[in-house]
């Protein structure tokens, strides 16, 4: 398998309607050569429909799928030369591991000798060479997943499509395979398109994430960019957790403004970009881990007093729910090893965060 043999894929105004229901609504996305892109969204967001349209199993109602600029929308799946790992892997139960991996080569009419060499190389790639004679049902879930990967990569596909590749595995194995998948992506240098509803999986593996909701592409970008600069309330809420603060804009200045929420005024530094006009409503997303508990005499750009409603110990940290007078209920996550106070219900606390911790976000269109 040669390195950097990736291809670029483009979606242009992709739309899929089932009767009155719009599963995918005007989605355009450019995926670069060798990129690992994850389509992330809740169930019913249209992510799987998009993947199936890329694979050729779903004919779009409108729009086009382009491979290296060439329109491949009318091609049937078997002519697209894309590798695909299905949800549940879809290994052929009547074939051994080696026969499963050889299947795509066999239907391409490759000679037996070439086939054997390629199958061996693919099984080596996923470290399953010693299992080649077994049937899929004799393998563990993780091993089956790797066979599905080997089968999807053995014929040097232009793209690798992954449909919830890790959803059938338990949590620990999932974390292991996330790393493996990412390493595999680097090794084979191919374009990977992954579909998942698991935001952790998306954050840890992808070069870029495209977030979908109700069939629309809400935001696409690098994981850190999406997490730190969510464009809408949905993105902030779906990717990680978030507090939302709504208020009126006061004193706009380049790079920041004050947000008036009840009797409180919060300093907001939103970096470059035009400030909202004074008097308009604005919504802020504030990540729970960016809130800290202030010790006696400690100060922060934004400070709020409150009472602990409930708390939970999570090992690495405490998760707190705090009632405040003006900002309602806030969630905070604190590292447990350096918490200034031992949490207790009804304990009065002071919360603080910096001006650049909160990010203005838009309300999602209904």
């Amino acid at each position: 398998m040669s390195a950097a043999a990736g291809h670029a894929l483009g979606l242009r105004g992709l739309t899929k309607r089932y009767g009155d229901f719009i599963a995918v609504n005007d989605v355009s996305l450019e995926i670069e050569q060798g990129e690992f892109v994850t389509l992330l969204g809740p169930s019913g967001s249209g992510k799987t429909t998009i993947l199936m349209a890329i694979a050729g199993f779903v004919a779009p109602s409108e729009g086009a799928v382009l491979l290296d600029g060439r329109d491949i929308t009318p091609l049937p799946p078997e002519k697209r030369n894309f590798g695909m790992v299905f949800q549940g892997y879809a290994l052929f139960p009547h074939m051994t591991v080696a026969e499963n991996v050889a299947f795509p080569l066999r239907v391409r009419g490759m000679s037996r000798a070439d086939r054997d060499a390629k199958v061996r190389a693919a099984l080596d790639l996923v470290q399953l060479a010693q299992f080649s004679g077994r049937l899929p049902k004799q393998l563990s879930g993780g091993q089956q997943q790797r066979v599905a990967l080997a089968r999807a990569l053995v014929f040097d596909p232009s793209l690798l499509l992954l449909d919830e590749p890790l959803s059938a595995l338990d949590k620990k194995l999932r974390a292991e395979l996330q790393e493996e998948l990412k390493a595999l992506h680097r090794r084979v240098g191919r374009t990977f398109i992954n579909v998942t509803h698991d935001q952790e999986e998306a954050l840890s593996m992808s070069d870029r994430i495209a977030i979908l909701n109700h069939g629309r592409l809400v935001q696409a970008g690098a994981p850190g960019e999406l997490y730190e600069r969510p464009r809408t309330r949905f993105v902030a809420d779906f990717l990680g957790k978030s507090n939302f603060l709504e208020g009126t804009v006061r004193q706009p200045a380049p790079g920041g403004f004050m947000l008036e929420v009840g009797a409180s005024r919060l300093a907001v530094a939103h970096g470059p970009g035009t400030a909202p006009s004074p008097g308009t409503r604005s919504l802020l997303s504030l990540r729970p881990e960016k809130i800290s508990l202030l010790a006696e005499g400690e100060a922060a750009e934004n400070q709020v007093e409150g009472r602990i409603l409930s708390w939970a110990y999570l090992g690495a940290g405490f998760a707190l729910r705090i009632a405040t007078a003006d900002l309602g209920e806030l969630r905070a996550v604190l590292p447990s090893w350096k918490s200034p106070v031992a949490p207790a219900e009804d304990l009065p606390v002071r919360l603080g965060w910096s001006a650049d911790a909160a990010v203005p976000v838009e309300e999602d269109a209904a």
Partner: protein
Amino acid sequence: MSAAGRTGAGWWLLILPAFLLLVVFYVAPIAQVLTISVTEPELGLGNYERLFTSSAVQRVIETTLRICLITTVLALLLGYGIAYAITLARPRAQGWWILAVLVPLWISVLVRAFAWVTLLRRQGLVNNALLGAGVIDEPLPLVWNEFGIIVGMVHYMVPFAVLPMLASMREIDPRLLAAARGLGASRGEVFRRVFLPLSLPGVIAAGVLVFIFSLGFYITPAILGGGKTLMVAEWISLQILDLIRWGLGTMMATMLIAAILVTLLVFSRIVDLRRIFGAGA
């Protein structure tokens, strides 16, 4: 005896009535058939010797096996097509298909045999239509021969072929077929390399069921064979009821049972028999 042992014996007593019923009405008559076959007209294996010496006996067995094999093959081919169409049909259409397969099962086999006679006889619908269309000059001999028997039997057997095959096709994960296409297989290859091999257990199950069923078939061959082509069941009835040769008739009945048991034994090594008889997978 321990308490557990006593309760165990108690449970066994509960099935005693069923056991007795089975012995009195099923095992005992079969044992009697077996006994008569070695005692009438005289003690010994004289009746079984006919298997090797009588060309009439051999001809009946040969005819029966030939008709059963042809019936099984045709019923499997037709049934496979129907089961495949049902599997691919939309859920609502599936219901209608299955109804169409099952309805013939609820119609008396006698009625169906006579229906075929009216269709296939010399002045029947088929011959008249062909004569009228000028395809043939003479009516074809479509009934009261092996052809007629096979038509009637295949018609009867198709539902029994469809149901086990349908069950096994429905167990095939549709994602496997999509995966095969995604990996580059054409529709034909998907069928040949994935669908067909995965549906094979159902085909074998259906084959065994139809073959065993056909071996002892009586009414359809009797009516559509017109007394000229004899299959085992009709031959047995002829020996016992008309010729009063109990020994010979029961010998053939014993052979029939033996043939069925041997077929089951052979195929139980290949497929899960519980599946054939409806215990599910």
